[in-house]
């Protein structure tokens, strides 16, 4: 009884501590936002005494109309400055300032994404460790989560350093523009800074408290802290997103760019939420990719079978988490583009059909590469399971489906051709391939690719297992029917899309996506249930996988990184010659859009630079490792997500 009391006391104290902790961490957020929302953050031009303190005969407050929300509000800020090319607005080195800013921004973004993604990753893995009944496996998960927080700790300081570099670059090279942005976002920027402190504090306690909070209830407190860490991280990211969303689709200001006192309008612009969702998913896919590449690198350099087994497993887990977030990513992207079109038709056309359309073709290549690589890795994974050979004969059919869809997916709307080819073809539009160049075909292709990826995963889940549940034949028949119907439905809707108005066609993406997601959720869940207690034909031998699979993981990560760089560039350059779209014009000599070749080289440079520095981070992480990772001997059963093994 006395012990129980002691335990109960401990629990109360732990709850109390956690509550205080959360309260303190979130205090800056609560304190700052109402201040801003009530218009208490006047811009410099209007930083006189608050209205209440003004004499009664003071000039009436000037009102103006919100450019997006169309609401009226008091003019608080100064109009957007009209810059001129010169040292006042655009001081510079003997170099293109925009390129310097590009590198600083991109590197900060890569690290920012990584340190936001890895804690989510850790949270999932640590939680898996807690709920896993097998103690050895639980320790393995726990160790994995710990290893990654350790890596993210170094990456975290790099993120902060890069953030500093970014701000200095803005202040020194684009002072007028940054001044304007800061005048509007002042409360948000302060909140951001304070949240950064909160994030750091939580991360340090999370990391250094790992051993102290190892057992029992304290472990739950520890994993709860990872939730808090991720909430803060996500809010941080959303605040930073509000700045770029404002630059792209401003709100909360009038047509002259004068702040109208409602900070929520400034934050909550029309593209803010689509960007938020897209970035959260993208960060996770990217984080999974980087971790998987790390594991692949360690696998390739491993000296022992134990090491190989461990890093094979780690690569698989990371890839799995990354791909889980990759699958909804195209849908989030679709939503973002839809909102862009709804915001400004010109912007949408510049992106998808005009000036930047060629970059979207490159993006299509990267997306296709991601899915192909994922499938390839899963097929290679069959090699580590004895008894999975029976599924390998289906690979060639899946390759065919994927490549055919990829061909449709990649066919450009506007083809590159010599004038002679143009004449031979008889015009810009090809009667066969022209049909592959439009959205209806693309939607069909990408949904088929994703559905096939799900099928590959189900095949992988089954690998060395034979279901023993009584209803297995029925389940198999259902799965067969589900996927057949899905393929028929997706392709039929893609064809039907040519015969209906555009707004209906856009709406057709919903049933297509629903079909794909049904296959994902219903198919995988049903299969997992069928595989419970299934008979194993042979063991899963971690580490016995081809080196090609590991190169596939590295390629996956590189493709993620490259694509992030590319899409970031596209999103940013769609503003064309505006700092803030239609509000503040870019009058620097660099307001033109770069050539595709230059942009591609810059993206590649950024990717290379990131991978070089992240290798350094990994190397730092490995310095602290005193012993070999927890042994997962060859042939030993180790856990994987989705309860497949």
């Amino acid at each position, binding site marked *: 009884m006395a012990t129980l009391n002691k335990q109960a006391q401990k629990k109360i104290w732990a709850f109390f501590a956690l509550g205080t902790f959360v309260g303190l961490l979130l205090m800056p957020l609560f304190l700052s936002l109402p201040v801003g929302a009530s218009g208490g953050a006047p811009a410099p031009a209007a930083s006189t005494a608050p209205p209440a303190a003004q004499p009664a005969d003071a000039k009436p407050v000037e009102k103006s109309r919100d450019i997006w929300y169309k609401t009226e509000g008091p003019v608080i800020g100064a109009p957007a400055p009209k810059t001129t090319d010169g040292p006042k607005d655009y001081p510079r080195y003997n170099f293109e300032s925009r390129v310097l800013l590009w590198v600083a921004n991109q590197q900060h973004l890569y690290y920012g994404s990584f340190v936001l993604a890895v804690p989510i990753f850790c949270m999932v893995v640590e939680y898996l460790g807690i709920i896993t009944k097998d103690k050895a496996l639980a320790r393995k998960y726990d160790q994995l989560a710990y290893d990654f927080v350790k890596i993210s700790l170094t990456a975290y300081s790099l993120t902060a350093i890069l953030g500093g570099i970014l701000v200095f670059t803005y202040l020194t090279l684009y002072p007028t523009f940054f001044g304007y942005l800061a005048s509007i976002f002042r409360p948000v920027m302060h909140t951001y800074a304070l949240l950064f402190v909160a994030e750091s504090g939580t991360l340090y306690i999370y990391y250094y408290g790992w051993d102290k909070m190892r057992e029992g209830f304290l472990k739950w407190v520890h994993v709860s802290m990872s939730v808090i860490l991720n909430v803060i991280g996500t809010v941080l990211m959303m605040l930073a997103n509000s700045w770029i969303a404002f630059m792209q689709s401003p709100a909360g200001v009038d047509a002259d760019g004068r702040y109208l006192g409602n900070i929520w309008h400034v934050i909550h612009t029309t593209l803010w939420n689509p960007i938020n969702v897209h970035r959260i998913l993208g960060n996770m896919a990217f984080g999974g990719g980087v971790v998987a590449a790390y594991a692949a690198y360690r696998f390739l350099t491993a000296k022992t079978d134990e090491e190989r087994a461990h890093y094979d497993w780690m690569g698989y887990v990371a890839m799995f988490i990354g791909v889980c977030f990759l699958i909804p990513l195209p849908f989030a992207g679709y939503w973002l583009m839809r909102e862009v079109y709804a915001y400004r038709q010109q912007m949408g056309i510049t992106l998808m059909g005009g000036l930047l359309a060629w970059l979207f073709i490159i993006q299509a290549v990267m997306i296709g590469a991601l899915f192909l690589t994922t499938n390839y890795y899963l097929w290679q994974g069959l090699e580590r399971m004895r008894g999975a050979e029976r599924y390998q004969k289906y690979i060639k059919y899946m390759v065919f489906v994927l490549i055919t869809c990829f061909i449709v997916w990649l066919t450009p709307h506007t083809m590159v051709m010599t004038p002679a080819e143009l004449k031979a073809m008889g*015009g810009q539009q090809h009667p066969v391939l022209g049909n592959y160049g439009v959205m209806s075909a693309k939607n069909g292709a990408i949904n088929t690719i994703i559905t096939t990826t799900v099928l590959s995963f189900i095949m992988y889940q089954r690998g060395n297992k034979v279901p023993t549940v009584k209803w297995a034949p029925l389940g198999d028949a259902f799965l067969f029917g589900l996927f057949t119907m899905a393929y028929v439905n997706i392709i039929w809707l893609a064809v039907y899309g040519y015969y209906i108005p555009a707004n209906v066609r856009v709406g057709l993406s919903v049933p297509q996506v629903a079909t794909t997601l049904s296959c994902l959720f219903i198919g995988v869940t049903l299969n997992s249930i069928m595989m419970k207690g299934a008979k194993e034909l042979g063991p899963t031998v971690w580490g016995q996988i081809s080196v090609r699979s590991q190169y596939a993981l590295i390629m996956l990560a590189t493709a993620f990184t490259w694509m992030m760089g590319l899409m970031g560039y596209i999103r940013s350059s769609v503003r064309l010659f505006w700092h803030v779209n239609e509000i503040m014009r870019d009058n620097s000599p660099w307001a033109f859009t770069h050539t595709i070749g230059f942009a591609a080289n810059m993206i590649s440079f950024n990717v290379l630079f990131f991978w070089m520095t992240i290798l350094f981070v990994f190397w730092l992480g490995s310095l602290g490792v005193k012993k070999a990772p927890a042994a997962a001997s060859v042939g030993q059963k180790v856990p994987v997500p989705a309860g497949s093994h």
Partner: protein
Amino acid sequence: MDVIKQMLTGKLVEGYMPMQMLFELGSFALLFIGAFYFLGKNGIKVNKLAQATGLFVFSILYFTYRIYPPIPFSVRAIYATMTLIGIFMWVSSTEESWKDFRKPIIAVADANTAITKMIRTVVVVLLPFLVGFMGYNSMKPNVDEPIELRTVHPAPPASTKVHGKTFVLQTASSPYRVDDAGKYSDTIQKTHIDGNPWDEKAPPYLQYVREGGQIFFQNCHFCHGDNLNGRGMFAFAFNPIPANFTDPGTIAQLQETFVFWRVSKGGIGLPREGFPWASVMPPWEQHLTVDEIWKVILFEYWHTGYYPRTWD
């Protein structure tokens, strides 16, 4: 049935070609798989490298000679690369198949027999020549016209001024896309898609379509063709040839106001982004009234059966 018959006789059937191509590719893939399976069953095991080479050569031939009109090289290069990737994924999907694929390559590299030795010698001698030829080829001065990356649909302005009136492209709508009561209707085209515009009792919408058709045949069909497919009698005098409205990538992709802007301003009014402004379309605002422009656009959509892009 007729369509299937035509397909089976090897004809590319207009309107069905995109799906026909995919279907043909699938059939050939199955044929390949079946043939190698059959040979294997009869004791003739075809090496994976040979299979892969055969498949690759076949795909090149298919994309070059089967599809008509000919596909530009840039697209064929994309297709060939994709096929190569697919072939690599297939041959390396299992360890056994990968070994089989590498076997002849390794045998040539090791050169343990007289034949492999000879092949290796030939390869070693030819390789530098091949690289040299490629180098020469890429450095050789080229007299062909350069490739132009043309932006077919440049981003439109927010608004356009025609005959002194400003039209906001995001919000403007055709005054003739109207139902019988004279109200703007998204669905009126669908209702009358099979209607007869020459019927004297035709509803207002169809009458406008008829008027638009008359304007089209007085002004536009010389270039855009009487089937609206961009193959008018003057079409091939121009480079690029006029837009093909029956293609799903032209007016079907655009808002009616976008088309209104392009018709009004013509090639000369292309924005900066529309490099290299290679369009000879006249600015029709100099020849047609605002109403006539809207009517001719109405006719183009009705005749092709496409619907202008609209937003919810």
